C-alpha cells in the first residue's frame, strides 16, 4: 500500500471512524472465502496492477481502459461514509476516491443507458473462494442511472489515505452508502450501460431476500436478519445503534424513490 493525495470534503459521519484493523480485517469478499477473515488472509493473491476496465453498452466511448485513464488520481477526495451490511452490522469508513457520476460521464452514456451494471474480477487461481459455487461467479451489481449519477455514489481507490487493500476491493470499488454493503461491488473489471434492469448476484441467488434496490430500510424485516438495529463493529462487543432509513442518507437520496413502494421494491 501507499499514500494517496486527496482533499478533504464535507462528507462526514458524526460517529468515530472504525479502526483500520477492523475495516481491513473483517470483510465479506466471498471470492476469497466465506469467513470474515478469509479476505485479509487470501486476497493478496489477487493481481491488481496493471488493471483495466472494460466499458460496454449504450455509450459513445466503449472499450478497454487502463485504470489510470478511468480515474483521475490528481482529483481524489476523501468521503467518510457509514457502511451498513445486510448482516446487521455497520462501520464508518474514510474512503478515498472520485464521484461515480464524473467517471461514468467520461464515457458519454446515451439515452438508452437507463441502468449501469458492474462486474467483479474473476480468476479461480487467484480467488480461491470462486472454486466453490457459493454464488454464480463473477459477482455482478447494478444501479439505476439516476442512482449512479447521485452525488453520493462513489468509486473508491483507497481508504484511510492509502491505496485500497486487496480485501477491500482493490484497486477500484463502488461505494453506495444508502444501500446495503453488497451493492458496493469490489474489484471492478467491467462497466456496462444497459437499458433494462441488469442481473445482480444476490438477487439471482435469493430473490426473496435480496432485491435490486437494496436500500437500507429498517422497516423491511429481512427473512434472515431484523434490520431495525445494527452492531457497530470496532466499538466494543455490545455496541449497537438503531438503523436509519437510507442509512441516514435520506436527505440526499429519498427523492430518487418518490412514489415507490420500498417494501415491494426492496
Amino acid at each position, binding site marked *: 500500500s501507499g499514500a494517496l493525495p486527496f482533499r478533504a470534503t464535507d462528507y462526514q459521519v458524526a460517529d468515530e471512524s472504525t479502526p483500520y*484493523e*477492523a475495516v481491513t*480485517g*473483517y470483510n465479506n469478499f*466471498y471470492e476469497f472465502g*466465506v469467513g*470474515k*477473515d478469509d479476505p485479509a488472509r487470501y486476497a493478496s493473491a489477487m493481481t491488481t496492477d496493471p488493471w483495466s476496465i472494460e466499458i460496454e453498452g449504450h455509450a459513445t466511448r466503449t472499450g478497454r481502459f487502463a485504470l489510470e485513464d478511468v480515474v483521475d488520481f490528481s482529483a481524489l477526495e476523501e468521503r467518510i461514509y457509514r457502511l451498513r451490511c445486510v*448482516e446487521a*452490522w455497520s462501520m464508518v469508513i474514510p474512503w478515498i476516491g472520485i464521484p461515480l457520476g464524473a467517471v461514468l460521464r467520461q464515457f458519454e452514456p446515451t439515452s438508452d443507458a437507463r441502468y449501469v451494471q458492474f462486474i467483479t474480477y474473476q480468476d479461480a487461481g487467484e480467488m480461491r473462494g470462486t472454486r*466453490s*459455487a*457459493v*454464488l454464480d461467479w463473477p459477482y455482478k451489481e447494478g444501479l439505476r442511472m439516476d442512482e449512479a449519477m447521485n452525488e453520493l455514489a462513489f468509486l473508491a481507490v483507497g481508504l484511510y489515505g492509502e491505496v485500497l487493500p486487496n480485501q477491500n476491493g482493490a484497486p477500484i470499488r463502488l461505494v453506495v452508502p444508502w444501500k446495503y454493503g453488497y451493492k458496493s461491488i469490489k474489484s471492478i473489471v467491467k462497466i456496462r450501460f444497459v437499458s433494462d434492469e441488469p442481473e445482480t448476484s444476490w438477487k439471482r*441467488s*435469493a430473490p426473496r431476500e435480496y432485491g435490486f434496490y437494496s436500500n437500507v430500510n429498517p422497516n423491511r*424485516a429481512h*427473512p*434472515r436478519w*431484523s434490520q*431495525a*438495529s445494527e*452492531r457497530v*463493529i*470496532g466499538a466494543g*462487543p*455490545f455496541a*449497537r445503534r438503531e438503523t436509519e432509513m437510507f442509512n441516514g442518507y435520506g436527505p440526499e437520496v429519498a427523492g430518487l424513490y418518490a412514489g415507490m413502494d420500498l417494501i415491494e421494491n426492496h
Partner: protein
Amino acid sequence: MAKNAVLRSFAKDWLKPLTFWALALPGLWLGWQWGLLLSGAPHDLGFNPIEKTHRFLGDTALRILLISLAVTPFRDLTRWLPIMKVRRRIGLAAFWYAAAHLVAYLGLDLYLAAGMSLTGMWAGLWEDVVKRIYITLGMTAFILLIPLALTSFNAMVRRLGARAWQNLHYSVYPLAVIACLHYGFMVKGNQLGPWIHGGILALLLAYRAGVWIRSRMKPQPVASTS
C-alpha cells in the same frame, strides 16, 4: 493380553473423565477468550465477538451431536463396547452447547437490541421464530432436544424402561436433520459448511438404515433350540 489390559483400565478409569474434559474444552476456551476481551487483552474473538460466539456455540453443538450419533457405528466397527458408557454424556453436552447458543442469542442479540427489556426480548424471539425459517428450525431442534436431555440420567432410563426410552430417543434423528437445515438456512449463498455437516449426518443415517434393513431381512430367531 497386555494391550487388552491397558484398554480395559483406560475404559475403567480414564474414558469418562477424558470425555468430560474434551467436551468441556470448547466452552472453557470461549469463556477464556471472553475473559481476555473484557479485560482488554488480545483475544481470538475477532471484530464481531457476538457473531463469533453464536457461530462457535452452534458449530460446537452440532458437531457434538454428530459425534454422539457416531458412537454406535464406532462400537460396531471396532467392537469396543466401553465407548457406549459415554454416549449419553456426549449427547447431553450437545444439549448444553445448544442451550448456550440459544441463551447467547436471547441475551447478546435480542435483549441488547431491545434496549435491555425482557418483554422486548421475548417479542423479538417470537418475531424471529415466525418470520425467519432458520430460527424456526433452530428452535424446533432445541425443543426436541429438551426431553432427550431430561431423560439422559440413569434414573430416568430405569423409570421409562429401555424400550420406551429408546423410542423417545429415536427423535434424535429428525432433530439432527432439522439442526443441519437450521445451519443451511442460516448461511448466505450456497456455502460448503452445511453440506459437509449434512453429508456426515447422511452417512450416519445411512449406516443405521442399513443396520435396520439387515435386521429386517434376517429370519427372526424363534427361541434358542440348542
